[in-house]
């Protein structure tokens, strides 16, 4: 066809294939980058993983099917093992039962004493936590994400933040829930931060995951607060985990960093228990609790310089502005009262012999002790009916 055909001007124009493909790659990269920027995994919130609930439900199906024969084979080998080694196991179990019976009697005695102490001291004890058993069906164990899918979900009352343990120790917490499947964020994940305590010294620390099997123990304070082999428990600080869950033992890495040898790694994680523990953030209204108060609600307003009369300033002979009477600062602790008409300028106080510049003299410490600015705790407006006026005695 000749080049001058009016109908097909561009038939000989070929878009370079490589550049066109690069355009497609760039578009996909831009979309992925926008998704990455909008999905900050560090902010582990209920909505962060819940949008993957449908995917988790579907993705767990093939792994349930795959794990079924594995579990069956495991159960079969366990049955054979029990059958052949029943006598030897029976003997060792009898010894253990005798020992545990003594421990049980001692435990009952101590529990009785403990209950009496609690009544005497009028302690507020924590109620027992309900648990749900589940089975692990899929694992992500790479260095960039450590997750686990378990075959129990919201139908069994599992909710966001519920701690997950095995018979050995803490495994992680639930970060995504669907009807029949939940996603567990392992304590080894890079976004996992668990407040812990060292049982021997009662020292506090933060156990931060790094994708490996030995999470780091950061923010350890005090001399000899940690020793090799110390037992690590959850401290309950922050309210995410209940206090006293066994976590692991302290070890020192080759890099000199304190790490935790997890109890949950003692055996393959197959069955887990989900504690239906309501963490602290679920109890109060988080919108009210976590709202940052206005600065004017917390701090006293800055001191306003007094505009002295021309005669007074000429009489004093000082050109420096004087600080405002601090009583005005006290009465204006609330934001609404900053412009109260009661804050009238008072006659200047008697000057000291050597006047100082106003900038070096904070208004809050100028006069009497009764005029010290008061720091008030923030009270959310939802819980208060009206803004309480300043007391009369402070006027």
């Amino acid at each position: 066809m000749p080049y001058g055909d009016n109908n097909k001007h561009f038939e000989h124009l070929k878009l370079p294939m490589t550049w066109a493909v690069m355009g497609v790659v760039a578009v996909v990269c831009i979309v992925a980058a926008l998704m990455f920027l909008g999905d900050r995994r560090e902010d582990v919130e209920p909505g962060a993983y819940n949008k993957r609930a449908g995917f988790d439900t579907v993705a767990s199906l093939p792994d349930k099917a795959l794990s079924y024969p594995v579990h069956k084979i495991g159960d079969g080998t366990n049955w054979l093992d029990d059958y052949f080694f029943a006598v030897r196991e029976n003997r060792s179990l009898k010894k253990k039962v005798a020992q545990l019976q003594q421990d049980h009697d001692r435990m009952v005695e101590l529990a009785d004493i403990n209950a009496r102490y609690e009544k005497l001291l009028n302690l507020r004890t924590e109620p027992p936590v309900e648990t749900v058993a589940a089975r692990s069906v899929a694992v992500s164990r790479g260095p960039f994400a450590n997750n686990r899918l378990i075959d129990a979900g919201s139908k069994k009352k599992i909710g966001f933040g519920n701690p997950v343990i095995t018979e050995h120790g803490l495994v992680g917490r639930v970060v995504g829930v669907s009807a029949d499947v939940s996603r567990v964020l392992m304590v080894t994940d890079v976004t996992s931060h668990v407040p812990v305590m060292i049982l021997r010294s009662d020292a506090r620390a933060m156990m931060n995951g790094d994708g490996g099997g030995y999470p780091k123990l950061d923010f350890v304070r005090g001399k000899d607060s940690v020793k090799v082999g110390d037992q690590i428990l959850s401290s309950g600080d922050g309210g995410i985990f209940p206090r006293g869950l066994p976590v692991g033992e302290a070890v020192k890495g080759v890099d000199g960093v304190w790490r935790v040898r997890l109890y949950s790694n003692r055996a393959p994680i197959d069955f887990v228990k989900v504690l239906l523990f309501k963490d602290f953030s679920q109890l109060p209204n988080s919108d009210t609790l976590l709202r940052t108060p206005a600065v004017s609600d917390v701090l006293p307003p800055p001191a306003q310089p007094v505009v002295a009369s021309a005669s007074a300033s000429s009489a004093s002979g000082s050109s420096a502005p004087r600080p405002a009477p601090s009583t005005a600062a006290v009465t204006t602790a609330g934001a609404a009262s900053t412009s109260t008409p009661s804050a009238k300028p008072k006659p200047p106080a008697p000057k000291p012999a050597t006047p100082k510049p106003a900038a070096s003299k904070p208004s809050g410490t100028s006069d009497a002790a009764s005029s010290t600015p008061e720091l008030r705790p923030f009270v959310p407006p939802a819980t208060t009916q009206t803004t309480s006026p300043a007391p009369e005695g402070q006027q």
Partner: protein
Amino acid sequence: MKVPGMLGPKRRGISGAAINRGLRSGMASKIVGPWDWILAPALMSIGLTLALAAAFQPFGFYLPEPVSPLILAFTWPLIRPSYFAPLVLGVLGLFLDMFWGASLGFWTISLMLVYGALVTARTYIVGQEWIVVFGIFLLTECLFFSLCVLLTLIDTGVWPRLWGVVEQAFATTLLFPFVLYLLEKYVHADVRFQ
């Protein structure tokens, strides 16, 4: 490509059929569609990822966790630049993000950057000895996992355990024979790819 142990394009795979369009048998071409070299390997990659994520610890050891879509991100641009392959690779990355619980876009960005780099450099790589291709694959892996570490650092502010990264890279390297297999099977399989 000279690969030890492989006989060359004389073999016919189970997926493709030889079509004789009136030419002599030696010149008959084989139609290789997107299903053969894009969709089927992508589904196999998803299957491998699902299988290796099973909660099963034989003798107390974890199963390896290779990034199998990296094999495709390395192979597809060498076989032929395609409009369809990067889209499928993006879907694979999204699947890894969802299944492994990473931030959305984490694996997609890493895989797409590997694909884009190799599309621009494919003419220098295709036709080289397998050992050269293996060296470039190792280099690509280093860049890929470095990018993953960087993205993790940006996302969480925490350095992931580097030894764990090396372990995952090693598990991915064990899949390199599939790179040779796909290249041997599809690079010269269709005259339209030339």
